């Protein structure tokens, strides 16, 4: 009976792609650029939106919260889709780094959803008189916020890294198919009970406002990428704490 005792050398030939040790410094270099780009875009966007753009015909100057509310809402929804994208890659190719990307995206998405909710409430107060408005967009953003919290809670409560990656990916995929259903049902529910609420986007946006909003959205995008890369680096360090390249990294 042929048998050789297991050796300690790990040659996992299946996984010999770009390892985290190469991704880690790459991400490190990209973060400062992304952060400065985000700040610059935000500065220009805010300058145009706040100082140059005229006030809105119906809502006066209260509408300027749109420059914060809409970018954060877009980012909250977009990040969830990117999370599902990385989750699919993780489940199909078993690449651990893609699962870490999904887990790094979730907190930023949750913060974006929270910002969208807060700015939405602050915007609703002058327009509709109450802090919380059961408007279709705000309600579905609230549910999306819970989806993010559920994802974070699930991945953080499982100790075994492999299981938490795969469980998180499964949940993200189930979630992403349900997000449109949630949006549709909340919109349907909203029109049923309150009649078509006047949607502020109906008023055609002046070119200047649109430019400011797009700049702010780009800034939010750069910011989210930078934060995600910073967080994925921390996750890589946690996962690879026992490997030599991390310990040498730390000693440097």
């Amino acid at each position, binding site marked *: 009976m042929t048998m050789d005792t297991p050796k300690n050398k790990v040659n996992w030939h299946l996984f010999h792609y770009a390892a985290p040790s190469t991704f880690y410094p790459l991400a490190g270099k990209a973060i400062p650029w992304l952060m400065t780009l985000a700040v610059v875009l935000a500065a220009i966007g805010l300058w145009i939106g706040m100082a140059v753009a005229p006030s809105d015909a119906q809502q006066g100057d209260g509408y300027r919260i749109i420059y914060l509310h809409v970018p954060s809402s877009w980012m909250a929804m977009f990040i969830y889709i990117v999370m599902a994208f990385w989750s699919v890659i993780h489940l199909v190719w078993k690449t651990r780094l893609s699962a870490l990307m999904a887990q790094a995206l979730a907190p930023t998405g949750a913060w974006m959803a929270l910002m969208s909710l807060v700015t939405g409430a602050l915007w609703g107060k002058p327009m509709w008189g109450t802090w919380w408005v059961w408007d279709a967009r705000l309600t579905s953003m609230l*549910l*999306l916020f*819970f*989806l993010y*919290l*559920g994802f974070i*809670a*699930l991945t953080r*409560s*499982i100790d*075994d890294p*492999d*299981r938490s990656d*795969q*469980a998180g990916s*499964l*949940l993200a*995929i*189930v*979630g992403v198919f*349900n997000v449109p*259903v*949630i949006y*549709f*049902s*909340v919109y*349907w*529910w909203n029109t*049923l009970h309150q009649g078509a609420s006047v949607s502020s986007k109906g008023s055609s946006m002046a070119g200047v406002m649109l430019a400011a909003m797009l700049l702010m959205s780009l800034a939010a995008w750069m910011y989210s990428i930078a934060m995600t890369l910073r967080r994925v680096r921390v996750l890589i360090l946690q996962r690879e704490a026992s490997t030599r390249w991390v310990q040498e990294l730390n000693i440097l």
Partner: protein
Amino acid sequence: MGVLSFFASVLERDVLLAWRQRGDVLLGLMFFMLVATLFPLAVGPEPNGLLRIGPGVLWVAALLANLLALPRLFHGDWIDGSLEQLLLAPYPPSMMVAAKFAAHWLVTSLPLALAAPLLAIQYGLPLAQCLMLVASLLVGTPIITALGGIGAALTLGLRQGEVLLALLVLPLLAPVLIFGSGAVGAVAAGQSGMAELSLLAAMACTSVFFAPWLAAKALRLAIE
């Protein structure tokens, strides 16, 4: 022995196990009734108030009662190791999971749906709304079992798995609640309510079709 008879034997096994612990079914029903009777105490007994909130309250109570029973879906088998034997059976694991979902639906959700009219009388719902309530519960609860089953498989064996299961699954079940209570509300408003019911049925078909496969994948993680 074909896959369908494997489905039947797993279904029969689970129903037999549930029958041996008949008390659990009553517990679920009592929880449902208790939640439904708490609301009038809070909101006040005047009939037209209760009539208006009736469908919504009964649907929320049924949803919570179902949610309460979901962790037991796999926990019993996981604790004594028979879940591994089930996964080792020479048949697709999604068929086993589908059978467990069906058994769980029969044992928990069906009694709730049938007991709902009793509580509907408490809220003074007319007959038409009672029937639509039962219909929407019968069509809606498979979605709760399917999506909740995925959540139960994902959170199997975790600390505070039940609370986590609720956090994961409730946002996904918002549409079920909206269309379920919407159907009864539509009947109250004189419309036929079939629009909401058919949307609910569509969601039920898709989730019941995809959930067993996803839950089987999630179970395999919990077994390692």
